[in-house]
């Protein structure tokens, strides 16, 4: 009942709770799906489920990357800009005759470099994560606009643009990409020692350091992962809309953060998972999809989204408090 829950000693769910909580979010998602299935005829069609999986995919991947950073008690505001910038990068490379695979490789590498730059700013220059990533957000959009001269670069590579439309085993390729990212991410965060180090740094970086954890390297890792996920999403976006455009993905950073927090990540660090943000992202996608199917006024949709974020995170807090 007091503000202490918002300080750095915020309550943390127990191990068992963690899984339960994951289940409850899953429950919420299934509940939403049930509800939409009952109130629309078109929700439970193969086509719509495919759409839904595609629509949530990009935010889901961003949210996973973001979660690594948030667990270290940081934040990465640049991811939306990195997505837009990456779409420009790959489109530019392709339009200048670079073959597909190298073009994608270079784009991912740019993501790595951006993440390394963030970590450099935080670790070496002592800047708050909020500020350095806000600054790159601004600058990257500027660079992307400069490269494209404010316009878009069309992508003519059919193989590339067809990818995002393709299915594999009946499941959209974009959703496969979520799986491709989520499984190594899960192993990394929950089963490997580097994941543990992320939590330790987020909880108390000084204690982690004195225990021999290379705190700086851990921070580099987190930000590089986040930016690389964002660059990867940039590739997917470019494939999906078939253009490179620096102003795309505006505000996606907030969606990614919201997904992550809905998925149980604590903005104070040291609490988070891989499955949570995924569920969070698909809950948000479901809200939008449902609102579209129900033909909810676009403005009302915004209101609902805001309210639901509050409600979901509030019940999350309640659950945690109950577990104490």
């Amino acid at each position: 009942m007091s503000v202490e829950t918002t300080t750095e000693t915020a309550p943390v769910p127990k191990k068992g709770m963690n899984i339960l909580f994951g289940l409850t979010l899953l429950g919420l998602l299934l509940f939403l799906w049930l509800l939409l299935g009952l109130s629309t005829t078109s929700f439970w069609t193969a086509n719509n489920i495919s759409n839904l999986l595609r629509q949530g995919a990009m935010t889901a991947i961003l949210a996973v990357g973001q979660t690594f950073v948030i667990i270290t008690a940081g934040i990465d505001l640049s991811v939306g800009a990195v997505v837009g910038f990456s779409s420009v990068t790959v489109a530019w490379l392709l339009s200048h005759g670079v073959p597909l695979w190298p073009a994608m490789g270079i784009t991912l590498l740019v993501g790595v470099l951006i993440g390394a730059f963030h970590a450099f700013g935080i670790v070496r220059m002592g800047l708050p994560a909020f500020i350095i990533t806000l600054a790159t957000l601004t600058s990257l959009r500027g660079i992307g606009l400069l490269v494209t001269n404010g316009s878009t670069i069309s992508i003519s590579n059919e193989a590339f643009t067809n990818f995002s439309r393709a299915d594999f085993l009946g499941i959209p390729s974009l959703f496969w990409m979520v799986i491709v990212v989520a499984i190594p991410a899960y192993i990394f965060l929950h089963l490997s020692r580097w994941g543990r180090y992320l939590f330790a740094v987020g909880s108390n970086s000084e204690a982690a350091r004195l225990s021999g954890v290379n705190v700086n390297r851990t921070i580099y890792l987190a930000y590089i992962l986040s930016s690389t996920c964002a660059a990867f999403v940039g590739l997917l976006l470019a494939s999906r809309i078939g253009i490179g455009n620096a102003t795309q993905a505006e505000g996606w950073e907030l969606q990614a953060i919201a997904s992550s927090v809905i998925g149980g990540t604590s903005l104070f660090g040291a609490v988070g998972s891989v499955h949570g943000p995924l569920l969070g992202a698909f809950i948000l996608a479901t809200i939008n999809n449902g609102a579209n199917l129900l033909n909810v006024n676009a403005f009302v949709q915004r209101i609902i989204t805001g309210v639901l974020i509050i409600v979901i995170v509030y019940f999350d807090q309640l659950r945690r408090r109950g577990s104490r």
Partner: protein
Amino acid sequence: MTGLYDVSHRHEGAAIAKHPVAKGQPILELRGLQKKYGAVEALKPANITFLSGEIHAIVGENGAGKSTLIKLLTGVIRRTSGEVFWCGDAVQLATPNEAISRGINAVHQEVVLCRHLSVAANMFLGDEMNKNGLMRKRAMTDAAQAVLNDLGFNLPAAALLSDLTIGQQQLVATARAAMRGTQFLIFDEPTAYLTRQESAQLFRLIRRLQAEGVTIVYISHRMEEVFELADRVSVLRDGTHVGTRNIGETNDAELISMMINRTIEQIYHKETLPIGGTIVETRGLSGPGFTDVSLSVRAGEIVGLYGLIGAGRSEFALGLYGRQPVSSGEIVWQGNPVKIRNERVAMDLGIALAPESRRDQGLCLNLPIGMNINLPIFDRLSNGLTINRRRETDNADRQINDLKIKTPTRRVLASAMSGGNQQKIVIGKWLSHGAKLFIFDEPTVGVDVGTKAEIYRLFARLLEQGAGIILISSYLPEVYELSDRLHVFRQGKLVASHTYRSASHEEVLTQAIGV
């Protein structure tokens, strides 16, 4: 209004002590006071009466519920059930504010002050001097300085709190509590980070307060302090109030057996072992906070470092451990000169450091106990990519058992542990890591008598395995009784060295103070 100083106006016109209670009459009565954290019953229904004007000690093992009791009385947490009577009236004590305005104040176990504010601002926080709605900053600084001087604490009131060492911060918290008009003052292990000299100042303060009619509750793990100060003593065990004694009618042995249900023959466990080769030697080592320190540690020995607050011992340890840059001098490790650039280098050489502040340096508070214990050794617990869960849990459970950490499982968060149990986690972390040289900085702060004895026995075990230990402690009996060699620090310099029991307590103290 009671209290030593006439600077607080918080209680002007407030309903403090409507019916003044005569000395020796009950001022605060607990009836069936109980606190549960989920399923954990931290305090079982307790009936304790505090008499006006007495010094009432509370003792008990780590996790016995002492701090819980204090937090209930000061409105930090809310009780699960029971009643509290203050001057005969039933009171809620639901918020710190309520407790303070009734005249109940506390110096908590963990220093809770604002590090971004000045000493004076901290002392007046929530109770500022105002004039026409604006703060009188100058007047507050002057008043705070006057109080600090009067108490004999050599601290500048205008300094930022973050510039002080943890011990000095403890003094600020004490001065603050003394300054506020108060009737009932609780000290939760106030001497944990203090040396003899500061402790003596604190005791003088407590006696002065008692003379003013303030009721004092005093919590400590140091028996001699209890016998020196208290009029009566209550014992808690596993959250149960097992009894209250008049100090004249009891003794060490009885209290300890009430606390832990068994007796301890010998606290300072010391075996004389053959001393081996030199593990580490520093030659003229200097860095921030310490200058020109030369000492060596050999296998099988404990090297004690004693000094007053801010003498530079912790800084020396951090320098040796690679956490802080060393400006000059040399470190020789098993005969070879080495540069210890960071903590990892130190660990790889075989140095372990259990730091002094468990909150800031020792623990990831919002992570589980098991994760804290395993933190230094995750690389060893991994098979290539992933961590071996089995070895991870086995190791955590072993340390929890060995150190008798009071927890149902390794999954409980470190923040839910009592102060002493948290300290055990810090130690457990380094025991599982293992090393040639262990640096323990204030390892027994807040640790109960029984566990202390166990920790000392652990030291012996480490020594038997051929390790060397640097023991930094502000608790003179501890370093005095355990150290094979005892070095005294003063203002960042090593000023004197003694072999086991070769100097008297008084001699060591004099050297530390430097008079």
